[in-house]
């Protein structure tokens, strides 16, 4: 009993530390990559290559004055960023970041909460994340904030549908809601050569899911909630200092979690293709698994960042049109095709 709790606690601490460091450095990566794309230098003064920039940013945010507008609802104004970040971090609990590792004679599963409703857990928490943004906009008592938060809530609710329906395809192929089962199912090979990743098995579902995940994380080209030319800063217009910092962290935490979910559901999770054909020790295999997972997540993250600086923002009606008239029917079609193929293969 105590041992199980202790192992879980250690896993949580390690994952949180890695996740928060990754969040800080993804901000740095975003700034450097945007600078590269726009033919600038980007932050390069703090430390070698500007690598200590995240620390400087955090220190700056902590020491800034925290201003709450006079007519704001103070408790909810304080609560909103906390909800945003908590939800983002909590989602990571069900994501397997490796297979199993044997440490000190104890076989440890590399997943914090190995629940058999993993996929539903992710969807449930992504539906909760609306609260942070909606409450931030409403409690600020500012029309730009409210407009931003209403847009974002509408956007998240709309794209949640295609997100959920896209996942149904994966569940149908896997036959389980366990995320480690989803990964295990992708360790096979199609026609003996191609790794059976769900992005090859479920191409329509993959595209739908990735687009919906972009919309869920409020990233370009779907960053309508904070469209600067129209809405000042959107839902976080009235936030300063550490609370703004929390929203900032939450956005990048959401990105990392979304990348991790895409990796797990569609890109084979911690599985490195063809590694099982070579004879490696179990310990090395576990470490390779973790590294593979980290590298895949990083690549998806970099892809998200590059997209932000490449594609212009949608207009609001185009966004809704895409969500309801294109993504939603596509996700339904995917379920139909998947069902048909599964029936024929039986």
């Amino acid at each position, binding site marked *: 009993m105590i041992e199980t709790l202790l192992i879980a606690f250690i896993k949580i601490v390690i994952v949180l530390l890695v996740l928060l460091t990754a969040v800080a450095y993804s901000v740095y990566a975003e700034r450097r990559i945007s600078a590269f794309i726009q033919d600038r230098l980007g932050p390069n003064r703090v430390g070698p290559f500007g690598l200590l920039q995240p620390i400087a940013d955090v220190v700056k945010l902590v020491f800034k004055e925290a201003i709450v507008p006079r007519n704001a*609802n103070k408790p*909810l104004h304080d*609560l909103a960023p906390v909800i945003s970040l908590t939800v983002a971090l909590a989602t990571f609990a069900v994501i397997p970041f490796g297979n199993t590792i044997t440490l000190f004679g104890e076989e440890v599963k590399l997943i914090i909460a190995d*629940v*058999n*409703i993993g996929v*539903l*857990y992710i*969807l*449930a*928490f992504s*539906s*909760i994340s*609306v*609260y942070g943004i*909606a*409450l931030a906009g*409403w409690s600020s008592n500012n029309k730009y904030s*409210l407009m931003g938060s*209403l847009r974002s*809530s509408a956007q998240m*609710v709309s794209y*949640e549908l295609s997100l959920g329906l896209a996942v149904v395809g994966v569940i149908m192929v896997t036959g389980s*809601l366990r995320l480690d089962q989803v990964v295990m199912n992708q360790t096979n090979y199609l026609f003996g050569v191609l790794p059976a990743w769900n992005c090859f098995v479920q191409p329509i579902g993959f595209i739908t899911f990735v687009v919906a995940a972009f919309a869920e994380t409020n990233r370009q080209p779907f960053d309508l909630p904070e469209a600067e030319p129209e809405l000042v800063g959107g839902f976080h217009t009235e936030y300063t200092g550490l609370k703004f910092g929390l929203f900032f962290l939450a956005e990048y935490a959401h990105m990392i979690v979304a990348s991790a979910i895409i990796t797990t559901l569609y890109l084979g999770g911690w599985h490195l293709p063809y590694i099982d054909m070579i004879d490696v020790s179990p310990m090395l295999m576990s470490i390779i698994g973790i590294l593979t997972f980290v590298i895949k997540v990083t690549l998806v993250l970099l892809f998200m960042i590059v997209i932000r600086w490449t594609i212009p923002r949608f207009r609001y009606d185009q966004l809704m049109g895409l969500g309801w008239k294109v993504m939603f029917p596509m996700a339904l079609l995917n379920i139909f095709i998947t069902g048909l193929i599964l029936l024929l293969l039986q």
Partner: protein
Amino acid sequence: MTFEEVFFYFLAAGAIVSALLVITRRNPINSVIFLVLNFFFLVALYLTLKAQFIAIIQILVYAGAIMVLFMFVIMLLNLGDEKRLTDRVTWKQFVAIGLSLAFVMQVLYIVGFGETAEMKTMSAKAVDIGTVEYIGKELFSYYVLPIEAISVLIVAAVVGAIVLAKRKFD
């Protein structure tokens, strides 16, 4: 008390307190927040009963969809604080108090006299019944007719909503 009992009383107390806060807050947004909190206590209670599917659906549907809709409506209508009702006494209040008392008596009766040996132990099948697989199989075999009837009903409701909304724009 065992660990489970402590856990249960903690969750039950949390659920009751948050439910009381829902009906005593004057600002409707605060009520919504406490109702969501109440759902989370309920979810934890469901999990102690090994009903994972109901638990996660409670978050997904109630906390994640229906309450967001509630919040939307409150924000869009810009509802202010509720007015106090204490200055007017109507017969409805007496009926409400009477009904609540009757309900409390029922609960007390069940707690005091209705307990059977069956209720004291958790059924061995509880773990299986709570899973998504079991519920899915039951819904699409034994309960297939009710499920289809409900889907038709929901489609009718959606079509009705669209017709009503469309009339306004034409």
